């Protein structure tokens, strides 16, 4: 029986089945659902500042806003079902932040979404899911959502 479940979400459609799975599990076990959104620092840091400084600020603000929306969306669905929920927004390397949060908050299972796409593509990109599964001391449940 789980007391605390961590759902890292990027708010994309790749996370939708994982979100449903995590909500069901939290509901069933009476667990607290922790929803985490990590703003990938490599995304906004890859834009060099100098003459585009305004765009740079705009990008980070935009990422923060969409992250907050993703968190609030899941939190609202949890509250509607009477599930205890906590949300957290942070910046950094996604897998590092997920692992750190899981350790700091005594998480018992991490539920990760994954887009169901060709293996080749993923092998080239590397995968947050795989890194988390390999490095987490907690069990990790990977729930896929098919995307074209």
């Amino acid at each position, binding site marked *: *029986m*789980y007391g605390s479940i961590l759902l890292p979400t990027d708010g994309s459609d790749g996370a939708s089945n994982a979100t449903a*799975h995590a909500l069901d599990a939290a509901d*069933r076990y009476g667990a607290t659902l922790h929803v985490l959104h990590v703003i990938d620092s490599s995304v906004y840091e890859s834009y060099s500042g100098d003459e585009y400084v305004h765009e740079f600020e705009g990008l980070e603000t935009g990422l923060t806003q969409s992250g907050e929306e993703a968190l609030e969306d899941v939190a609202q669905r949890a509250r509607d079902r009477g599930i205890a929920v906590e949300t957290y927004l942070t910046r950094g390397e996604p897998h590092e932040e997920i692992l750190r949060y899981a350790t700091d908050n005594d998480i018992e*299972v991490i539920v990760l979404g*994954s887009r*169901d796409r060709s*293996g080749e593509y*993923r092998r080239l990109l590397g995968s947050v*899911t*795989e890194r988390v*599964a*390999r*490095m*987490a*001391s907690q*069990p*990790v*449940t*990977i*729930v*896929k959502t098919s995307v074209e």
Partner: protein
Amino acid sequence: MPEEILVPYDGSPLSKEALKYTCAEFGAATITTLYIIDRETDKTASRGWGDHPGMWEEWLEDRNEHARELFEGAQQIADKYSVTLQTGVAVGRVPEMINKAAELYGSDLIIIGLHGQSRLEEILIGEVAKVVVRNATIPVTTVRETVNE
């Protein structure tokens, strides 16, 4: 609530870890341990010129016997959680047969051990858990080896 859980089991410490976790967390579900007879990775399989139909039959029988012994060990683990296991044996490539068995049994969750770091063997032949996750359509829970034991 997962009702039909598939746990690939080969008697390795990692597969025992996955089974213990499954019994502890999902004792109320139907838990099926699956052993796969894989000619490509089984060290007892004959190679090349040694093959002929009679030997294949003998070898399969021997592997089935091995599976029965493994399942006795698995049931001993499950007994500690008062869980009665279902068992299954498949012949074929490991990751492929895990996903096929999950489909056949109508499993709603696969629970599988995952090494913290790839071993050389796994880099070469492709790691089972990784391939299972890639091809599965149902949720897969990966369980790591217990660090402090």
